[in-house]
């Protein structure tokens, strides 16, 4: 009997193992407990708050107090709805640029050469700047009386100051300055895991540097790049301080977090703010879902060589 029971347990174990469930999954436990304890409850709270429009708020005046009134309001009001597009217009190019630009630079940084560590450090330094210094620096450096405009005017390239700040470009620059090192650091690290022997093998098969990159390195790097893009995108999508400080927060760079901030902290309409935040999350989730869906179709596994 006992043997039978233990046999059944074993069989179950075999079946579970076949489906990938074994003791390794215990490693997920701390993270799961942590997330459940400290995130799920607050998140659910925020979620349900978004379905309870604030009495007396504009939403309620216009669309009643149904559970979706705040969402309705958001999508009905172009002033709010357009922030999605405004934000995507900033965050997608910024994230794409950061990821795409870091690949060739990281690619060049492989192998050993003098000054490599210094260049790496310098390239990574901007992540320490913080939004404030970046914004103040952009305003001071690229502002109408900043060094850059002075240079342009002294050099006769421009006859009056060029506007680099307080518009779309200002925010994009700041997203690049703060986002590039981030993407670069990740890309560089992911790249370092790829066995250089594979490229050598490709070289003996007649692949030039571009082909080696295109067919060997890039596909092996792609899963990492997918994640890098997602994280860069999320950072850029939630752009807030720089959209205000170096952007045009009432117009071109009225991003979605400004709308959320406005709802929460200027109108004190927390349920509207929650709804906007949920919409933010949903938009990001869609973009990330697309990327991760694509990623799941890629090869993911050891890139250390020997098959």
């Amino acid at each position: 009997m006992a043997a039978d029971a233990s046999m059944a347990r074993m069989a179950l174990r075999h079946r579970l193992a076949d489906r990938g469930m074994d003791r390794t999954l215990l490693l997920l436990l701390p993270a799961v407990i942590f997330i459940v304890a400290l995130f799920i409850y607050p998140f659910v709270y925020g979620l349900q708050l978004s379905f309870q429009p604030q009495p007396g708020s504009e939403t309620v005046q216009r669309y009643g107090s149904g559970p979706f009134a705040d969402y309705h309001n958001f999508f009905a009001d172009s002033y709010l709805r357009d922030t999605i597009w405004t934000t995507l217009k900033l965050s997608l190019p910024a994230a794409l640029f950061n990821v795409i630009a870091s690949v060739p630079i990281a690619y060049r940084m492989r192998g050993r050469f003098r000054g490599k560590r210094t260049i790496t450090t310098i390239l990574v330094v901007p992540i320490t700047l913080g939004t404030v210094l970046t914004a103040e620096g952009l305003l001071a450096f690229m502002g109408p009386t900043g060094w850059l405009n002075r240079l342009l005017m002294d050099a006769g390239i421009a006859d009056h100051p060029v506007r680099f700040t307080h518009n779309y470009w200002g925010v994009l620059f700041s997203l690049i300055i703060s986002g590039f090192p981030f993407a670069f650091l990740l890309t560089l690290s992911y790249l370092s895991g790829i066995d250089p022997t594979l490229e050598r093998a490709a070289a003996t098969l007649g692949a030039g540097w571009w082909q080696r990159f295109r067919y060997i390195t890039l596909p092996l790097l792609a899963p990492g790049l997918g994640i890098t893009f997602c994280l860069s995108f999320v950072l850029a999508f939630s752009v807030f301080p720089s959209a205000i400080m170096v952007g045009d927060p009432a117009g071109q760079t009225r991003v979605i977090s400004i709308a959320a901030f406005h709802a929460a902290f200027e109108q004190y309409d927390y349920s509207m703010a929650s709804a906007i935040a949920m919409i933010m999350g949903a938009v990001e989730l869609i973009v990330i879902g697309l990327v991760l869906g694509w990623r799941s179709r890629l090869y993911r596994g050891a890139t250390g060589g020997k098959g």
Partner: protein
Amino acid sequence: GSPSSGGGAKDLSPNSVPDNPKKAVTLNIIDVAGNLQLTKGMIDEFVKTHPKVIKKVTYTTATAPELPGKIKAQQSAGQVQIGLVLTGTDGLAAGISQKLWVKTDDYASRLGNANYLPPAAKMQELAQGHGVEVVYYPSGPLIEYNPKTVTKPPATAQDLLAWAKAHPKKFQYARPANSGPGRTLLMGLPYILGDSNPKDPKAGWTKTWAYLQELSKYVDYYPSKTSETMANLANGSADIIASTTGWDINPRALGQVPAGDKVAYLKGMHWVTDAQYGVVPTGVSADVLSADLQLLKWMLTPQQQAKAYDTGYFYPGPAVNGVTVQMAPPKSQQVIQQFGRPEYDQWIAKFPKETSLPAEQQVAAFDQWDRTVGSGKVRK
């Protein structure tokens, strides 16, 4: 978001609050208005002279918008750690509407009679009994200009518009929601332009909105903080900006703006006054509340109020009667002597004083400004 049904914040009844704390308290003060610049001296002196009431203060600074969330979190958890909040009208109003503050009026007898200046007394009414005004100033709207480029400053609103048209991008004010001078201009214009109801931004500000939209055509952009307009004035990107008494004196004293820059007012000027308050979150212990009350009372004595002259930050500053510059600390006197403007006393006496809009109308005005002026800006 914030839990609405926290309920942890125990309401004290006035009887349960002792005159003196049973034990000297540690008071955590949070400043969301830059108020400590004016009142820190008062508080420190209180602590020094009343060790049995407050054994130690900690200061935290923050911005007003995020404050209610933090207070609510503490209140919902029944763990209120903030003993006193120093705030402007924004934080005050947010807290009132969300029922965060102790009703100080219940303790009026302990606070004594504050003997406020008349316009300050009006500002105290905004607190609806849930806070104590500690400093006051008449604010603006004023225009500040660079005399090198603006030889004859506009004297009327129409002059200003014409000047802006003639000098595109050279007039500037910051987004009202983020800027004292910006919002003072917004709230002052209905008086200057003679709008039908200066207290009703939605229905009564027809002229103001039309004026601002017209003006907007010649405005380059709206900075998100006042100091940027100041910097632009200093570096020549702007020649006229919106200002207030404090924003005129203090930045010149700090060297942010050339000392020689001048101010002017527009015809039909009404002061739109401003004030800052001390408020107490509900849920604090009886001892802390007791200490708060003693402290607030102390801060409203004329000797302490004189410290509010500061370096012109909130010029003049004191909220109560009988405080003169001569009572202020010497450093204060010296700065006001050097960067103050004698005409201010005249102007303050001369022009009518109006309280700023109640919070709800302010929010509505800001929202309308954002939608119709800020974002409606024609791109050039």
